[in-house]
């Protein structure tokens, strides 16, 4: 088992009222799963992904990741945990515009205190694997959307995470580019990476082994 959410509630206080963003979420994810999260806009998909990614906290419930109880961990420890095991992919790619493709890929490694040579090797590996060696010195603005997302995924993968969290990774792409990305996910999943993706498209959701439906912060 990779992670387990038990009775997770998340809310914010607004004008003395509790607004629930997540209600009683119970979810168990095994290593190697490929899960698609679906639901209407505003139903809490991103929120759920952020909670799983430990970027966001929650008010009630338990969260176990591998052997750790995330709900009891200190901030720093938690950061180390997701740094080690989780990679993020975003709808808007979120690449750094001032950095080249190569530098963007290297960035997460800087924060893992890897030696220069080791970083170079990993970046080279990744460029090779995604067939973007020729683009390594280009800036994100010089790439197409699909290529940018490719870099985004490469960046998420570069520190060998166990889990990839992808929030509408194909939302800004045309259907052909989207298809390529989904094929890539499929392949990664087959190589053993656990993937949780948010998507609006039935077709993309079908790539997953399991579909979770959210409505108004609740799993249905």
């Amino acid at each position: 088992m990779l992670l387990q959410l038990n009775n997770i509630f998340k809310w914010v206080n607004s004008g003395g009222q509790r607004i629930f963003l997540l209600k009683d979420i119970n979810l168990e994810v095994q290593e190697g799963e490929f899960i698609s999260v679906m639901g209407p806009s505003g139903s809490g998909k991103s929120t759920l992904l952020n909670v799983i990614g430990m970027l966001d906290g929650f008010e009630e419930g338990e969260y176990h990741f591998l052997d750790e109880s995330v709900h009891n961990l200190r901030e720093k420890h938690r950061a180390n945990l997701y740094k080690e095991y989780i990679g993020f992919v975003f709808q808007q790619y979120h690449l750094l515009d001032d950095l080249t493709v190569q530098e963007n890929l290297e960035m997460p490694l800087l924060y893992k205190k890897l030696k220069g040579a080791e970083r170079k090797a990993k970046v080279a590996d990744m460029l090779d694997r995604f067939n973007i060696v020729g683009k390594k010195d280009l800036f994100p603005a010089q790439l197409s959307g699909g290529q940018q997302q490719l870099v985004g995924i490469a960046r998420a993968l570069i520190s060998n995470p166990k889990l990839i969290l992808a929030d509408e990774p194909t939302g800004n792409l045309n259907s052909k580019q989207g298809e390529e990305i989904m094929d890539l996910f499929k392949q990664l999943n087959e190589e053993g990476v656990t993937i949780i993706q948010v998507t609006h498209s039935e077709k993309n959701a079908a790539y997953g082994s399991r579909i979770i439906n959210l409505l108004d912060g609740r799993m249905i």
Partner: protein
Amino acid sequence: MGIRSYIRHLLKNKLYGIVTVLGFAISMTFVLLLSIYIQEELAVDEFHVNKDRIYRMENEAVDFSPPIAQDLKNSIPEIESFTRVLDSDARISTADSQKMKFDYLGVDTSFFEMFSFPLIKGRPKEVLQTPNSIVLSKSLALRLFGTLDVVDKQVSINTEHKFMVTGIMEDFPKNTHFKAQDAIVNFKAFKTLWGFETILEEYGFASVSIYFLAKPNTNLPAKAPEILERFKKDYWLYKDGWANSLVFTPLQDLYFSPKEGNGTQSNSKTLVLVLSIIVLLILILAIGNYINLTIAQATFRGKEVAIKKLLGSSKGSLLLQFVRESMLLTGIALFLSLFLLKLVEPVFNSLLNTQIDLDAKIGFWNLLKIVSVFGFIGAFSGFIPALKISSFRPIEVVRGQLRKKAKTVYGKVFITFQYTVTIGLLTCSWIIVKQTNFLRSKELGFSKDNIVQIEYLGAMNEKATIKNALLNIPEVEHVSLTWQSPLDGGSNQTFDYNGKPMSFQEIAIDSSFFKVFDIKMIPTQAAKAENGVYLNEAAISALEIADDPVSFKMEEFTVPIIGITNNFNFNHLRENIGPLMLRHLGESFYPQNIFVRINGKGMFKTLDEIKSTYAGLLDKTPFEVRFVDETINNWYIKEERTGKIIGYFTLLSFIISVMGIVAMSVFYMQQRRKEVGIRKVNGASITQILSMLNKDYIKWVGVAFVLAVPISWYALQSWLQGFAYKTTISWWVFALSGLTALCIALLTVSWQSIKTAAANPVEALRDE
């Protein structure tokens, strides 16, 4: 949309609004104020109708002999007329008024025709025709007579000399290089006033300033070399090497001339220059801040623009909108700054000792000028960011790529520039304060405390009586009578020493002098000699008689040296201590000063006692009593004023640039929020983020430091050149200024960067 949406936008972005409008208004207030001041200073003597034709003849100083003026008029066809000017003071009275001290100029008859000082009574051509005519200033006439209807009335100078009032003049305005004068008399009056019958013919007396009015369309200054040649042949001042140069300086340069003429006042060109630079700096900072903040704001207004563009708004109309908004802002700033201007005016006047009269300055045309300057700045600073914002491609905005575009090199350059200014200004004001303190605390070589200075007004034979009467006051320790004093630089004595010209300052003293001033004096072997003099060490070395200082040859006389004093200061510390000769105040020598050393107990009671004792010995003549230490402190008033002015404006520019830095750092951080979010999601810790954000600023401060050090070092070096005694430009002043800037940078940045670094990345990355 339009103005109303803009105002809503301003209200929402309070910091932006405040920094932009207030910062701009404050800056412009001082830019206006200083511009008016500089403009006034540069316009000194502009009111003279003949301003382009008036020259003052100058050598190393401005002193010439009276007959030279007529000689030149006779031989140089370019000269239309001349006036000699000699300043003096005396006591004036009417038949039934008290004697009053007054300052006057002796000038030639052409004075009022040459210069355009307005006469209330009398005609320029006529008022100075006779040697006993006198033109009173309006204020002196009112003080003496209480009315201006005084033409043909009689006044007495020093009781015995009768003068006829021939005219009344307006008091001299502040904007002329002449000091305010109470009266003008005919130059010939010195014959009787000074008992100097031959003054008009005396070549040996070289102390008058000479002004020439050149004929129209002639080039008098070009004649200078020719006249110089002639002087070198037949004028002793040049033949004997006292003077070597000759120039005709145009009237409007006189106010900034370091050469002090008769009855003149001056201002330092450096001060005006420094203030101009400061004005420019404030202006650049203000406009720069404005543009910078607006561009930074662009990122937050991108959506509005994008939507408008998508709705089909043309680039032109968008530009217009931005320019209009900017004009609105500068309009608000204009009103604020006019209001502030009125508020600050008295403070400014008292600080700079100026008489800026805003009401007189803010006429229709000036107001129009100011409004158009503001209008231009408003349009300009609206246009640049407008050009930038309105050229954003709307699709990029929609896709959230706008932020990146607003990060410009220009922003970084400007921040660096601001730090450069900050460090430079800090360093300069620091050194100015240091120099002023240095001058203040400089050893004078004599004791200045507890000494009272009184004018000697008794008769020649009352010297002993007055001295003894003062000594009878129990708190009085010593009394010394002197002619000249350590406070006024002494009188210049030039003589031939073994074929070389030698220039000494001279003071005449009595035996109590050294006790009163606590000056070290070592008697020589010849201490008992008759008619001996005391010399200071500088004089001994100038004479090159350090081995055997017992006497020296002054022209053909052998003068015994009875004592040697240390090099105490007898002049303003701008000057080096030169040779000084102290001679005995003999029986027939009329003293000018009484110096009284008191024991310092019950100072004011003692002072009253001295005053009443002294008054009892004189007839009703009023007299002045001053403390020596106050007089000395006053020497540095000009330096201190300069220091203060530069200091205040430095502080102001400093505040403006800090405001800009704070505001910029806020925007800088907002621009980097997303990047920070991305980095955090990819594993960066808060400390790593903090150091990344602050590193940039440290880098900029470093660059600024490297730029600021040589610039301010050079500026300070030039400023200090004017002083004989200079404080050191210590390295630690630079270091501390740099550190201060760094602290400011880290404080202002950390305030924002900590917030940014600690923010939840989810917030930063959420779609708007």
